């Protein structure tokens, strides 16, 4: 089902996308074909022959002020890093494979503890210094070990990183204290972007300052108006894109400008009025009007990320009972959710992973909507319906609350809907989605019942759910931890697929710790004559984008 993927330049057509969308939505939604012929709803827009030159305005939902690479967990950061910095490896969303980038090739020892990278020659940072084995080692060391003196956290994906060694001028050997097959993928993540030694030498504040970051990417920092715009210009001698890029040389665009539109309601209008070429974070309710006004909707899928989920936290007594968790899992009508607050561009997810992700197993039948069963489970758990319809157990109300990032345009309305559904089975939900302050506290508080999220997982699901320290569930499940270990140790792809399947099964059905919601997608409004594509992390690939004049 790769054919409606953002990056498929040839296959994707409006019809195809709409058809599939229709299938997924279970009903033909009007907006799908709204734009009419010519604008492929949900398709990449890289069609025709590239035009050289010009400037592209990418309107993100906010501009980050902290660009310390370790903390580039947000789209707003990875969107920038994808275009100014290169990585050892790249993730091919079509195949789910890790493909060469700065590392032209690599070898892994049989127990997944030693990785040997061969560094592509003649790559230079924009300050002229070479991106050689030494530079790579410097990067890997900071990522893997962190730097307390500089208040720099270590990269959570670099599990068991012991150190690197430059064995030849073009060779780096990485040693891990424990097996980690996912280490390779971890080097393809935005959080593993390679920076010039000059930048690495800076302290936290320095590394956080975008204007001070020197890297080897197709675009180079030009200027900024703090909190307002970031301007990057093309690097003419750029010639080392990853193998997934359709453009082997320098970018077509002369300049790219990142701006922010915090107001959800203004994002489509910005593109419609020609004030932005691309705008991220279009809310479902605006999709129809967008396509109606001839704006293309590019749906960037995110195999590099997990699906959207709601995670139960170990410290919260209310959801400590598995029956309750199960009840909540099956206690709302996903199809209704989709038709009410989502759109056909948001596939309902069947697991922790997106349907487009490698190793995805569809468990959706296992947690299909079943209100009666949910009620039965709750009764069984001892929660009896109270006077106002909300269940109670020895004087305590069945009340849960959810915290989630304000950045997702659908998660708050989605939980408003889920709230009304859960109310029917006697569960009260306080919807704190969108309240950043509460999210900030909730992340650090194991007793906060539910967190709604989706995350980069190139480093594997392990870092997200293994140790008790994980801020998602705060649960350390031995069976899971074992599975994670085997996954990291596994060498055979088939073997790893199997383990990954078990992990998903365990997370969703075994422990009922996660409530799968919908696949992670980012809907972008794309102006007329703008040709753009996205990587597996929904980051724009501006090196191969162009704008018709």
């Amino acid at each position, binding site marked *: 089902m790769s054919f409606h993927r953002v990056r498929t330049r040839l296959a994707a057509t409006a019809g195809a996308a709409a058809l599939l969308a229709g299938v997924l939505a279970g009903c033909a939604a009007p907006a799908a074909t709204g734009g009419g012929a010519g604008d492929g709803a949900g398709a990449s827009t890289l069609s025709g022959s590239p035009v050289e030159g010009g400037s592209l305005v990418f309107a993100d939902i906010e501009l980050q002020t902290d660009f310390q690479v370790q*903390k580039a967990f947000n789209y707003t950061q990875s969107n920038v890093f994808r275009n100014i910095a290169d990585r050892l490896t790249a993730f091919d969303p079509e195949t789910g494979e890790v493909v060469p980038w700065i590392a032209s090739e690599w070898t892994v020892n049989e127990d997944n503890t030693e990785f040997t990278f061969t560094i592509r020659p003649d790559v230079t940072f924009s300050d002229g210094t070479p991106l050689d084995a030494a530079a790579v080692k410097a990067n890997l060391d900071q990522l893997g070990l962190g730097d307390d003196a500089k*208040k720099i956290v270590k990269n959570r994906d670099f599990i068991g990183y012991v150190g690197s060694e430059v064995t030849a001028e073009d060779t780096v050997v990485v040693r891990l204290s424990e097996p980690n097959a996912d280490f390779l993928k971890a080097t393809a993540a935005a959080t593993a972007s390679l920076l010039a030694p000059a930048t690495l030498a800076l302290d936290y504040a320095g590394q956080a300052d975008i204007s001070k970051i020197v890297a080897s990417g197709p675009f180079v920092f030009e200027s900024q108006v703090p909190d307002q715009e970031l301007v990057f210009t093309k690097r003419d001698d750029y010639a080392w894109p990853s193998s997934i890029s359709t453009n082997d040389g320098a970018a077509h665009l002369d300049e790219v400008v990142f701006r922010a539109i915090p107001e959800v309601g203004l994002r489509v*209008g910005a593109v*419609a009025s020609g004030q932005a070429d691309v705008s991220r974070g279009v809310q479902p309710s605006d999709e129809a009007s967008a396509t109606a006004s001839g704006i293309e909707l590019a749906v960037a899928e995110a195999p590099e990320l997990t699906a959207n989920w709601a995670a139960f936290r170990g410290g919260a007594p209310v959801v400590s009972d598995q029956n309750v968790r199960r009840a909540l899992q099956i206690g709302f009508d996903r199809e209704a959710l989709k038709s009410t607050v989502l759109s056909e561009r948001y596939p309902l997810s069947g697991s922790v992973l997106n349907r487009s992700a490698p190793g995805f197993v569809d468990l959706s039948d296992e947690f299909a909507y079943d209100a009666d069963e949910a009620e039965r489970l709750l009764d069984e758990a001892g929660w009896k319906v109270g006077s106002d319809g909300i269940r109670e157990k020895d004087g305590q109300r069945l009340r849960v609350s959810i915290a989630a990032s304000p950045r997702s345009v659908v998660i708050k309305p989605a939980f408003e809907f889920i709230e009304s559904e859960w109310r029917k089975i006697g569960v009260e939900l306080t919807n704190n989605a969108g309240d950043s302050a509460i999210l*900030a506290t909730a992340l650090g508080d194991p007793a906060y019942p539910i967190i709604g999220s989706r995350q980069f997982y190139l480093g594997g699901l392990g870092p997200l759910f293994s140790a008790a320290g994980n801020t998602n569930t705060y649960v350390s499940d031995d069976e899971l931890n074992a599975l994670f270990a085997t996954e990291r140790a596994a060498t055979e792809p088939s073997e790893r697929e199997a383990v990954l399947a078990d992990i998903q099964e365990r997370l969703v059905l075994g422990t009922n710790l996660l409530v799968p919601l919908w696949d992670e997608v980012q809907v972008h409004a794309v102006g007329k004559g703008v040709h753009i594509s996205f990587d597996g992390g929904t980051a724009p690939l501006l090196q191969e984008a162009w704008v018709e004049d």
Partner: protein
Amino acid sequence: MLRYLASRAGQALVVLWITYTIVFVLIQTLPSDPVTIFLASDAGADQELIDRVSALYGYDRPWFEQYALQLGNLLRGEFGFSLSTGQSVLERIGSVVGSTLALASTGLLLSVLIAIGISAIAFLVDSPRLRAVIVAAPSLFSSIPVFWLGIVVLQVFSFQLRILSLFPDGSLLSLLIPALVLAIPVSAPIAQVLLTGVEQASELAFVKTARAKGARPMRVFWHHVFRSSLGATTAVIGTTLGVLIAGSVITETVFARPGLGSVLLRAVIAQDVPLVQGLVFLTTLVVVVAALVVDLITPLLDPRVLRSVGTRGVSRLGA
């Protein structure tokens, strides 16, 4: 006058100290440790690192030590480093303070003009109905949600008319329109003061005298009514700075303008204590200085005040 200046400066310092204390207490009562929040991102919370960072910022010391330490730093102009961005607080603030000043000052100017306009019309029109409408304007202005107004303005000017850039582009218009949105609520209290002046005008003896001289209505308004409420007006303007800041937080968010407003918002969300402290301390400083200036120029505008100088009268605070 010198003595007065000295005493007022003294008072200003006391005020600064009190505000610092209030903020410190607020921060101390935080339910959660800012450092934890800062570090417990999606990346997971590493306890030892948390301890190391809090030690680095001195958050592990007893409260009274922190109180003295931080106060000392502020007095020495050392605002420390922002937890959430690692930038120096001054740097962070300095990078955007300009655009906020531009917005705020323009907004203030516009609001004063609006207020004067309203009161002038209210004084000049004869029809009681029309006057009733005009007099109602300020309370209406202070009742419109600023963000709503801002979004409507953007929909109209930026999307329909397409004369205003959605992103601040440095053009005069992209400053004026947000400033106008900001000015609407700020103008309300100023207009109210001027209006009370106008409403009393019909009873005020000296206005009678002026009219009895045969002065034209316009002259009566400017030379007597407006001129004599000028003192009270400046006093109020001194106190609208709070509204101005609140307004700019929202205006800046709606119009995606960089500025102290958005910085404050993020700092507060991230519970970035050093940044919040720095912001509050600096804005307080500005407001206090502004109040001081107002106090110094009010006597020039209203000689009566000179007599009550030294004792900060409520009347002049425009309560």
